[in-house]
């Protein structure tokens, strides 16, 4: 643990501290603006970091990464527009809370949950990182297939009142996920000879349309000419009630573990972590029907889960040299530009730098409490004071600029508008939107890994089940599907019994 002391003293210098503070605030802003996301921001800032002290550069990465994962929750709660793909699950209960006049509480819970998840994840990175990284090597294509299936099973909690339409939405998402070049055969699917479709539909473009446009259209329909007054907003800080934190502890613990687990697996991301955490919280709850109607536990689970993914996603990158997501790849490329060779020796090459980055991931998680709370209540809530009719064009402009800068192509704007219009109608027709995105995220992962696994086993499907880890995951998936059913049956029985006794 010597390196931690050395690294701590290196981080506790003016440069890294200022960078962490500034970057966390910037991260919250980036996360909160629909269309902007941490990957883009870090990629944009990367050239600046080439000529910088690496600890300062990494402090910025840590701040933006952690800050933005929380920032995404702000519009998710206030406007039902997820700021990043990882904050979709936050809208489920966050927005209903805001509608009930509990926006301040929801933001506070999101802030604390993000910090807790981030801290737990950073601690995991510091302590058991290398050990966990070795374990992930046992996850081959067959195991990844089951993880994708496990994720798909969580669709059950999103389908709402109409399971058929929920499944239908998920299948649509899976189908949308097949658009583009098929990595395993090289053939183009559903591209209709359009070059821009070869890379598939951009998740963020569809997400911004699907999730941001319907609320904007509804805002226009409401035609609010006045805007909310400060009193109506009720965003003054609400202290936690006695016992409230205690009630959130089990959710935080569960979601942190899920986030860390998803994080260390290369290829799985914060959005999956948030969905799985939300699902777990609902399954564990004694009143699952209150989820989706403004249950604080739902906000806590989603936000804790997506932040717990962050530091953990650095584990395979820093210990094995395998970047599990784009942010990790950017961190590795920053390290390489500073002359370090990623791989198992990275830590021994420069313990102060690598340790310092770990500490920065920890400190920026703590900073969310300081910066996030203030930013959310003071800055962002102010936008709600604008009359709705002015918010409508503002959000439209933001959506377009965010979507345009991803790939620099105008056609993405039309995709966004089309997705948004479809989203508006589907929602009115009681078709949930979250399964569409979930299908788009997990579909390619499931398809590619199952086909890879079959290539390796020379076409024998039995091997999908006989490997020890994949067998466990398969059982867990089935249990995940059956769990809510069993619980419902049990409750119905209990209810019948009490009625009979009465």
């Amino acid at each position, binding site marked *: 643990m010597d390196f931690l002391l050395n690294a701590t003293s290196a981080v506790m210098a003016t440069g890294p501290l200022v960078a962490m503070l500034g970057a966390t605030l910037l991260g919250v802003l980036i996360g909160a603006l629909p269309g902007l996301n941490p990957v883009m921001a870090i990629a944009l800032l990367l050239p600046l970091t080439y000529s910088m002290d690496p600890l300062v550069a990494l402090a910025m990465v840590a701040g933006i990464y952690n800050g933005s994962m929380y920032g995404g929750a702000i519009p998710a709660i206030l406007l039902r527009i997820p700021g990043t793909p990882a904050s979709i699950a936050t809208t489920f209960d966050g927005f209903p809370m805001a509608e009930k006049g509990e926006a301040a509480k929801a933001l506070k819970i999101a802030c604390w949950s993000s910090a807790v998840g981030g801290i737990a994840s950073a601690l995991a990175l510091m302590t058991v990182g290398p050990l966990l990284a070795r374990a992930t090597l046992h996850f081959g294509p067959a195991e990844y297939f089951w993880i994708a299936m496990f994720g798909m099973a969580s669709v059950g909690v999103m389908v709402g009142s109409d399971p058929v339409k929920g499944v239908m939405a998920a299948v649509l998402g899976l189908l949308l996920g097949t658009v583009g070049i098929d990595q395993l055969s090289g053939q183009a699917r559903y591209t209709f000879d359009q070059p821009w479709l070869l890379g598939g539909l951009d998740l963020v473009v569809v997400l911004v349309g699907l999730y941001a446009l319907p609320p904007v259209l509804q805002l226009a*329909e409401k035609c609010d000419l006045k805007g909310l007054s400060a009193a109506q907003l009720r965003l003054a800080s609400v202290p936690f009630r006695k016992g409230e934190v205690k009630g959130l502890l089990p959710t935080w613990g569960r979601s942190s573990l899920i986030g860390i687990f998803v994080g260390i697996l290369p290829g799985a991301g914060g959005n999956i972590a948030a969905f799985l955490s939300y699902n777990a919280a609902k399954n564990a709850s004694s009143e699952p029907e209150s989820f989706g109607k403004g249950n604080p536990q739902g906000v806590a689970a989603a936000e804790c889960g997506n932040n717990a993914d962050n530091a953990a996603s650095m584990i395979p990158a820093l210990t094995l040299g395998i970047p599990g997501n784009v942010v990790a790849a950017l961190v590795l490329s920053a390290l390489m530009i500073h002359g370090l060779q990623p791989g198992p020796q990275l830590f021994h090459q420069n313990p102060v730098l690598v340790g310092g980055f770990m500490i920065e991931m920890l400190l920026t998680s703590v900073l969310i409490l300081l910066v996030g709370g203030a930013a959310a209540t003071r800055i962002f809530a102010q936008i709600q004071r604008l009359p709705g009719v002015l918010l409508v064009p503002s959000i439209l402009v933001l959506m377009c*600029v965010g979507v345009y*800068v991803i790939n620099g192509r105008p056609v993405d704007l039309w995709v966004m508008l089309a997705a948004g219009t479809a989203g508006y109608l589907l929602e009115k027709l009681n078709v949930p939107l979250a399964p569409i995105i979930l299908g788009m995220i997990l579909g390619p992962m499931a398809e590619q890994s199952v086909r890879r696994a079959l290539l390796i086993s020379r076409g024998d499907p039995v091997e999908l089940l006989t490997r020890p880890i994949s067998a466990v995951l398969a059982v867990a998936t089935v249990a995940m599907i059956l769990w809510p059913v069993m619980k419902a049956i049990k409750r119905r029985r209990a209810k019948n019994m009490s009625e009979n006794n009465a």
Partner: protein
Amino acid sequence: MERSQDLALGLLFAGLGLAAAWQAGSYQGAGGTYPMVLGLGLALCGALVMLRAARSKTDAPRRLVDVPANLVKALAAGVIYVALILPLGFYTASALLMLALPPVLGFRRPLYTAVVAASFVALVWIVFSLVLNKPLPAELWAASRLGG
């Protein structure tokens, strides 16, 4: 109302699924099987939705659009805006949208609108063009001067 809506929705998805499955028939190997299964699955879901709607006895009213006039205005503004971004340039088109949409929706405070529009467009310009140096569709008036 709800019934006919669900009938249409189911029909749409069933059609979409069948079209996808039919298209998947031309793809080779496992790369075609998977979307084919998905397409058929989607068609099945759509058929189920239709079937359920056809058999349902209740037909509760469900409004698709609360205020059609405003929705059409906002959507049209969005479409016109996106269509104008390339020819006019990003900032010109954005400024136009911010100035034009509020009065169309019935907001009668031109000064307030102008101030918000100006400061918001300026903010976007500072963040994207000044700080992040991101290329956005060039302005009409600037393009004629700088374009080669």
